[in-house]
């Protein structure tokens, strides 16, 4: 029933390598599609100075500013470096996730998302690939903070395993927030809008928490909000694991927050992505 024989270009497509793309959408191919999309972004990181600057310099700046400016004024149990590094980690990975939304909005406005959608690939791979590449970039930022922290006296006092678990917990938050930002990026109409819509709520979210100061110092009503904030949970969990003190339930609560946000927002962002494509 197909009028293939008439077309000159079809003689070439008889030997064309596109035969396999009609194949059922296997998990293996979904992973490969995601990996292809992730490498597209990873390749571009060293080439875009503004992104690299944000990833590398911003955390360095924050650690040093907080340590030397506030370090003497804020009363914390134990050393200020030990208190500060988990807070900065929480803040940095979450701010870093805003690039997921900005990048997605950029790709949409430049028509690249349309190109990806017109390819015979797994549609979710576009979002999975991007969030994974942002996770890799965030991991680099986290590593830098930990290295600088070590120079200022921060230690894995709870042992290497607990230290690694704490770091993974922060990265899980980074990944979860990338999905929130993906939804933001898909919902706004421009890169600028993605930028402000992605950034503005992060300030109260990260500052009204135990990330930089003990919540005990806040007024009662604010303290209640801060204590319920998932950032307080992840910061407290990380702080305890790094320090080798008892984290209580905070590790589980933080892990559940990360998992819950990831599941809910991955679902919302993916259905939004598929909806906009039809």
């Amino acid at each position, binding site marked *: 029933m197909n*009028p293939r024989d008439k077309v000159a270009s079809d003689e070439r497509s008889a030997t064309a*390598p*596109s035969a396999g793309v009609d194949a059922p959408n296997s998990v293996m191919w979904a992973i490969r599609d995601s990996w292809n999309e992730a490498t597209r972004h990873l390749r*571009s990181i060293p*080439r875009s100075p503004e992104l690299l600057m944000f990833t590398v310099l911003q955390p360095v700046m924050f650690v040093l500013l907080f340590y030397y400016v506030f370090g003497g004024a804020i009363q914390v149990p134990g050393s200020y470096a030990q208190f500060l590094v988990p807070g900065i980690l929480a803040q940095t990975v979450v701010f870093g996730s805003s690039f997921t939304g900005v990048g997605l909005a950029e790709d949409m406005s*430049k*028509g690249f998302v349309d190109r990806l959608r017109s*390819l015979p690939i797994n549609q979710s791979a576009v979002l999975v690939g991007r969030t994974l590449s942002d996770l890799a970039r965030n991991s680099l930022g986290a590593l830098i903070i930990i290295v600088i922290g070590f120079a200022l006296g921060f230690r894995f006092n709870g042992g290497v395993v607990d230290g690694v678990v704490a770091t993974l917990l922060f990265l899980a938050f980074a990944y979860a927030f990338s999905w929130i930002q993906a939804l933001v990026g898909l919902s706004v109409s421009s890169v600028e809008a993605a930028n402000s819509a992605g950034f503005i709520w992060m300030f109260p979210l990260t500052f009204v928490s135990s990330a930089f100061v003990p919540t005990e110092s806040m007024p009662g009503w604010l303290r209640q909000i801060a204590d319920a904030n998932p950032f307080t949970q992840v910061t407290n969990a990380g702080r305890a694991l790094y320090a080798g003190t008892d984290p209580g339930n905070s590790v589980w609560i933080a892990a559940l927050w990360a998992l819950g946000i990831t599941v809910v927002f991955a679902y919302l962002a993916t259905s939004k992505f598929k909806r906009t*494509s039809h």
Partner: protein
Amino acid sequence: MPLIEASGLVKNYGETLALAGLDLEVEAGMVLGMLGPNGAGKTTTVRILTTLLKPDAGTAFIDGIDVVAEPRRIRSRIGLTGQYAAVDERLTARENLDLIGRFFRLSSSEAAGRANELLDRFRLDEAGDRLVKGFSGGMRRRLDIAMSLVARPKVLFLDEPTTGLDPRSRLDMWDLIDELQREGMTTLLTTQYLEEADRLADEIVVIDHGLVIARGTAAELKALIGGSKAVIEPSGATTLTEVADALASVRGGAEPTSEGGAIMVPVRLGTTTPDVVRLLDAAALAVVDVAITSPTLDDVFLALTGHASDAEVSA
């Protein structure tokens, strides 16, 4: 059976009716030009045919495959070059092509080979390893089309491929599309310019308010308007009737008109300014200026719909 076959496509965006039951057929191997103003429904049609948008009603088949029911099979058979050059600026031209090859599940060596072929073919071989960020608009467009051809599609969609290009790049792009046409690439091309459709398309459909209002070759469409127009700025007592009579031997269908002191006389296609000057001279009529204007999209629209193709009307 046509390679692209759409019938009764309807699409609403809220209250705006973008497509009002559009029918379209494209035979294999032909370049079909889709001509219409902004908002006529050109891009909406392309987005439906390329699986980016679902129609509210109607059906569309490419190569016998239902666009709505089997988007994935459609995607492996089409190439799309949208209104913006969809290239990744932070990658090199080669990396962009390679990426598409890998998405189409070519092996690394196949993808690399195909990238080389296309870089060469699209005169990007020297710039192949440079970041696209530094490319001119014309180079980006060439890369954009090359990316659409990586998997040797059966149908190529070109949505306003020369919008935003400088005149030189536009001519380059026209040559490139000519070349693809000679190779038998079935192409759906949208444009706002009659000149472009005229130059590139085997046949043209004119669309307005989400419907096809005319279909034919460029010559057939121009015949609807009756050819070109001579614009004459008279001097002294020269009247419209005198001018019309003097030009009787070259006049086209419609009646002469006058507008803001200038006299406009529809003339047959191929009439040149010297022809008009000689005829006016022979009739001893005094004029200040003579010019021939080619038919524009606006003229076609006016002839077909009775209204101009401005954006307010068709937004």
